[in-house]
C-alpha cells in the first residue's frame, strides 16, 4: 500500500470527524458517486427498493463520494409522508402520488455510469417487527443484500445439492483418469498413490489460482514424483487416521472448539515453526485452498480479534459444504505440519 492509500486513509479519518453525511458533489439525490468508474450509479440498482413500508432512500443512499457507506441507505418517511409501495421516495400520505426526483439535482452534474442492463434487485428482507409496518412482509424475499443480488433459500438449497453432486462426479472421473497415469509413473516404487481429493485446489473454476498451486518448473511429472516422495515419508499417524477423518465434514471443526483453539495456536502465528516462514502457517493453508495472498493479508489484519484460521475454515465450509477433515489433514501433511495433524487426529 503506497502513499495513495495513506492519503485515502487520512481522508477517511478526516471524514469520520464529520457529524453527518454530506450530499454528493457530483450526483443527484437517488444516485451515488462511483469513485472508481468516475460516474453516478443508481441507488435502486444497487440496493433494490426500500425493504420496509414507509421508508425511503437517504441522500445518495448513505454513500459518500469516496464510496464509503456511512449511514443506513434507508430511513423512515418524515411525518406526514408515506411510501406503501416501495418507491424510492416518500410522498404526502393524503395525495397518494409518488414524489418525483428533485429538479436539477441541486445543480450537480450528472455523469451516469454505463451500466450493463440488468433487472433491479428484488425487495430485501425487512427487519422491523410487523407492528411497525403497515404492509405485510413478503415471505419470499430474503434479507438485505447490499452488494449482490438476493435469491430465495429454496432454489439455493437445490442449487447447492446439484453442485455437490456435480463435484462428486467430477472428482470420481478425475480419479479414474489419473489412476493409470499414477501407476505408470510410480510403477518402479511398487505402490499406487492417491492424490488428495480436493476440488478446491485442483481445477476448481472459482479459484483462478490453478497455475500457482501446481509446482512450478522444472515440470509437472517431476513435481508429482516429489509430492509422491513426500507422501511416502508421511508419519504413520496420517495413514492410520485419515480414513476416519475423510468421512467427517470440515464444519465439525467449527463445533470442536478445543481442537480448533489448539490448531489456531499452532497455525496462526507467524513466522511458522522453527522461526521460518517456509513451514506451513494459516497463510499457506489458505493458498492450498485456492485463496489469493491478499486474502491471507486481509485475514491476518483481523487479528487479534479474529483468528485467520477460523475465518478460513468458515470460508471453505460456506463455499463447499462437502469439504472434509480428510482434505484438511492432507493439506496439513503437505505443509509438513505433523503437530497440527496430531491435534486434528483427535477428531478421528
Amino acid at each position, binding site marked *: 500500500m503506497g502513499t495513495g492509500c495513506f492519503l485515502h486513509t487520512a481522508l477517511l479519518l478526516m471524514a469520520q470527524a464529520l457529524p453527518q453525511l454530506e450530499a454528493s458533489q457530483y450526483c443527484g439525490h437517488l444516485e451515488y458517486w462511483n469513485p472508481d468508474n468516475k460516474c453516478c450509479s443508481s441507488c435502486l440498482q444497487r440496493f433494490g427498493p426500500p425493504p420496509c413500508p414507509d421508508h425511503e432512500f437517504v441522500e445518495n443512499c448513505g454513500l459518500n463520494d469516496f464510496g464509503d*457507506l456511512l449511514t443506513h441507505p434507508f430511513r423512515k418517511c418524515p411525518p406526514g409522508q408515506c411510501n406503501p409501495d416501495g418507491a424510492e421516495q416518500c410522498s404526502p400520505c393524503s395525495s397518494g402520488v409518488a414524489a418525483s426526483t428533485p429538479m436539477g439535482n441541486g445543480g450537480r452534474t450528472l455523469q451516469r455510469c454505463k451500466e*450493463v442492463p440488468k433487472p433491479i434487485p428484488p425487495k430485501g428482507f425487512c427487519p422491523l417487527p410487523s407492528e411497525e409496518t403497515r404492509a405485510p412482509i413478503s415471505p419470499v424475499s430474503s434479507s438485505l443484500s*447490499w452488494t449482490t443480488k438476493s435469491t430465495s433459500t429454496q432454489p439455493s438449497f437445490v442449487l447447492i445439492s446439484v453442485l455437490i453432486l456435480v463435484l462428486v462426479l467430477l472428482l470420481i472421473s478425475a480419479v479414474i483418469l489419473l489412476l493409470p497415469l499414477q501407476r505408470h509413473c510410480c510403477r518402479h516404487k511398487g505402490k499406487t498413490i492417491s492424490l488428495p481429493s480436493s476440488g478446491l485446489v485442483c*481445477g476448481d473454476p472459482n479459484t483462478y489460482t*490453478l497455475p500457482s498451486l501446481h509446482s512450478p518448473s522444472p515440470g509437472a511429472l517431476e513435481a508429482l514424483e516429489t509430492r509422491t516422495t513426500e507422501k511416502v515419508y508421511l508419519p504413520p499417524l496420517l495413514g492410520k487416521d485419515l480414513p476416519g477423518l475423510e468421512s467427517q465434514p470440515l464444519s465439525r471443526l467449527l463445533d470442536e472448539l478445543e481442537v480448533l483453539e489448539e490448531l489456531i495456536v499452532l497455525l496462526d502465528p507467524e513466522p511458522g515453526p522453527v522461526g521460518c516462514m517456509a513451514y506451513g502457517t494459516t497463510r499457506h493453508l489458505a493458498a492450498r485452498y485456492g485463496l489469493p495472498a*491478499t486474502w491471507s493479508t486481509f485475514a491476518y489484519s483481523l487479528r487479534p480479534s*479474529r483468528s485467520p484460521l477460523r475465518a478460513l475454515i468458515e470460508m471453505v465450509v460456506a463455499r463447499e459444504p462437502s469439504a472434509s477433515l480428510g482434505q484438511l489433514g492432507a493439506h496439513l501433511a503437505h505443509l509438513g505440519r505433523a503437530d497440527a495433524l496430531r491435534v486434528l487426529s483427535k477428531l478421528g
Partner: protein
Amino acid sequence: LCQPVPRCGDQIYNPLEQCCVDDTILPLQRTQLCGLNCIYWPCFELCCPQSFGPQKNFILKLKVRGVKSQCHSAPISRDCGR
C-alpha cells in the same frame, strides 16, 4: 486448463489482483469505511447494516468466493460496533 476470463460488468479483470463489487473493479487490497469508524475490505467483506434503529450499527460479513454472498447468510467477520 482453460477457463473463461472473469467479467465485471462489461470489463474483464484479473482475480489474482482485483475483485468485482457492484460491476466495479477494485484492487484486492482496497479498504473502505463501513459506518463512521470501521474500515473493511470490500473484496473480502460485506458491510451490512444491523438495524433501522437509532444506533444503526454495522456488521461485517465474510464474502465467500465463488458464491453470491448475502448479508443474512454470510458468516460474521467482525462487529463494527466493538
